[in-house]
């Protein structure tokens, strides 16, 4: 029983990590209908930039002779992500308005290649341990009192994810920009006609998802170092999205939790019978079966089609 509980908890925590990436997808998909494959690379890029700002072996240190403190580094990285978002809007999206979704999707894969190349050239491609002072190791309290093994970092990640969702929810519901974002998500043309600038909104929403990517990059980077494989977690976020629905923020979180738990439990209890390593595809199969029952995902808007 204890072992089962541990499996579920570690699954939940892994799920939170997936959700962090999935969240960025949902934001962009809602606001612009673009399926942004580059979200994982965004996380990688943000992590690399942050590492460069705060460590002593990046070119920022070479250039100025000092490394930034962590909080300033995070702000500087956020600045970088805003610039990236602005460039993406300026150089890519603006020219692809009104194209078919698949063309936009492919352009984000191109973007992923490009950013990956840029990140490697600028910051080098070796694994970088990111340490911004987040607690590491097992939680002593739970281990002593309940004999449960839970990573502190994962607890932090869960808390951060919860805070992030609350902040995003407030941002979307209460602020002026948030209202504009929701209007754009609802109907592009109607939003344009009441005087909302699509271009500004796109820059904002890509910046916000850059921010989410930064958080994801910090969490994944603290967990397993910043490395190329970080960009592959984008693939793991896809079944999460399907499960939760492409357009739902709570869906991304709950989908992530379901996938995380399902994956871990299946790996531990069903894996040994079929040779193990089923983690790689179990999430997709789960999503596939789920889609057959509910094509729009758990919380997605019902798909209505007219001829």
């Amino acid at each position, binding site marked *: 029983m204890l072992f089962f509980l541990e499996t579920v908890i570690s699954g939940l925590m892994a799920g939170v990590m997936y959700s962090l990436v999935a969240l960025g997808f949902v934001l962009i998909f809602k606001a612009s209908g673009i*399926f942004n494959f580059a979200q994982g690379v965004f996380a990688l890029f943000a992590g690399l930039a942050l590492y460069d700002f705060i460590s002593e072996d990046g070119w920022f240190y070479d250039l100025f002779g000092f490394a930034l403190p962590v909080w300033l580094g995070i702000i500087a990285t956020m600045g970088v992500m805003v610039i990236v978002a602005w460039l993406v809007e300026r*150089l*890519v999206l603006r*020219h*692809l308005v009104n*194209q*078919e*979704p*698949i*063309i936009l*999707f*492919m*352009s984000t*894969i*191109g*973007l*992923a*290649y*490009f*950013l*990956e*190349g*840029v990140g*490697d*050239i600028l910051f080098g*491609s070796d694994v970088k341990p990111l340490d911004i002072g987040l607690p590491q190791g097992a939680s002593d309290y739970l281990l002593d009192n309940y004999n449960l093994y839970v990573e502190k970092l994962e607890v932090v990640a869960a808390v951060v994810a919860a805070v992030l969702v609350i902040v995003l929810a407030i941002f979307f519901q209460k602020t002026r920009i948030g209202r504009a974002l929701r209007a754009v998500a609802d109907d592009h043309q109607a939003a344009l006609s009441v005087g909302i600038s699509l271009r500004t909104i796109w820059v904002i929403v890509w910046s916000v998802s850059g921010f989410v990517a930064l958080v994801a990059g910090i969490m994944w980077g603290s967990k397993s170092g910043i490395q190329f494989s970080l960009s592959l977690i984008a*693939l793991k976020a*896809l*079944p999460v*999205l*399907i499960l939760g629905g*492409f357009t739902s923020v709570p869906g991304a979180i709950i989908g992530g939790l379901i996938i995380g738990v399902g994956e871990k439990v299946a790996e531990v209890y069903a894996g040994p019978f*079929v*040779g*193990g*390593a*089923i983690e*790689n*595809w179990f999430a*997709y*199969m789960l*999503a*596939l079966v789920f*889609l*057959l029952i509910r*094509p729009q*995902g758990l919380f997605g808007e019902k798909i209505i*089609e007219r*001829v």
Partner: protein
Amino acid sequence: MFYREAGQFKTSYKADQAIFTITQDKFFVGAFLVIAFGVVPFFIDDYWANAILIHVLVYALAGLGLNILTGYCGQVSLGTGGFMAVGAYASYKLTTSFPEMNFIIVLLLSGGVTACVGMFFGLPSLRIKGFYLAVATLAAQFFLVWLFNKVGWFFNYSPTGMIVSPPREVFGFLITGPEASPAVRYLFCLSVVTVFALAAKNIVRGRIGRSWMAIRDMDIAAELIGIRPLEAKLSAFAVSSFYVGVAGALYFNVWLGSAEPTEAFDIFQSFFVLFIVIIGGLGSILGSFLGAAFMVLVPITLKTIMVDGMGFAVGAAKHVEVMLLGALIIFFLIVEPHGLARLWQILKEKLRRWPFPY
């Protein structure tokens, strides 16, 4: 001046519906085939065959397959790598279990096996579409690769988990294994691809192809005019997977010679083929070839220029290559979202009036 169809009158429906209606086109394609079949084999060496020509041909065939599904029927698939693996492993099992079997039959049968698997994974397309379907096909990708990696029967329990293509002959010529000559392998690939391209061109012009295109343009409307979505979508998955399976078999047997599932058939394989289709042009047979040539040649050219011409280190060149490839993809999508095939068409339009455009 030269490319002008003035004075070429068609007097029968047959002439009107030919694949190449303009005499100049016939000459051009004919000359191209004569050079490809008659001249290139005499000058081909190992590098050209392996790095460029067979490479392009195999991916052109895979691109054709995906183009049938995505370009003609509108179903986005990210499982191409997995389906190529099915073709490769089917051909491996067939040719090692029945060494006497003619290799062409092995190819066709492995295509057939892939078609069945493709139809199975195409079943969700009846209920879901668009990106939801794309992610659903990822299930095929990851599951199939895992299956070939884990179940020993597929790779004949070889201790390394790799499959190695045994030497096989077609019409007395060795086409697989390390002993096969580059010219023979090239000719074999070229013949297969030519036949399949011709078949594809005719399928998509016929009744099935038209029903696919109707489904692509709007599936509900297509259903209303009497096209069965079940039939159309599953047949698209079957034909597409057949092509991809044959491409996978060629990829493994003729081009690579040995393969290991997690590397040779990974998700990037799927993206690569999808890029071929999109860059080349969705819904165009010619586009698959142009796209394959582009996606194969551009990285090689970039690498040659940077490493040999400008003296970059190989590692750094790799990063720049990835970056430039991404930039080029975005550039092409912006310049011409309908792909290289469309550029070719525009060029031909221009050529008709050249050099006196008024």
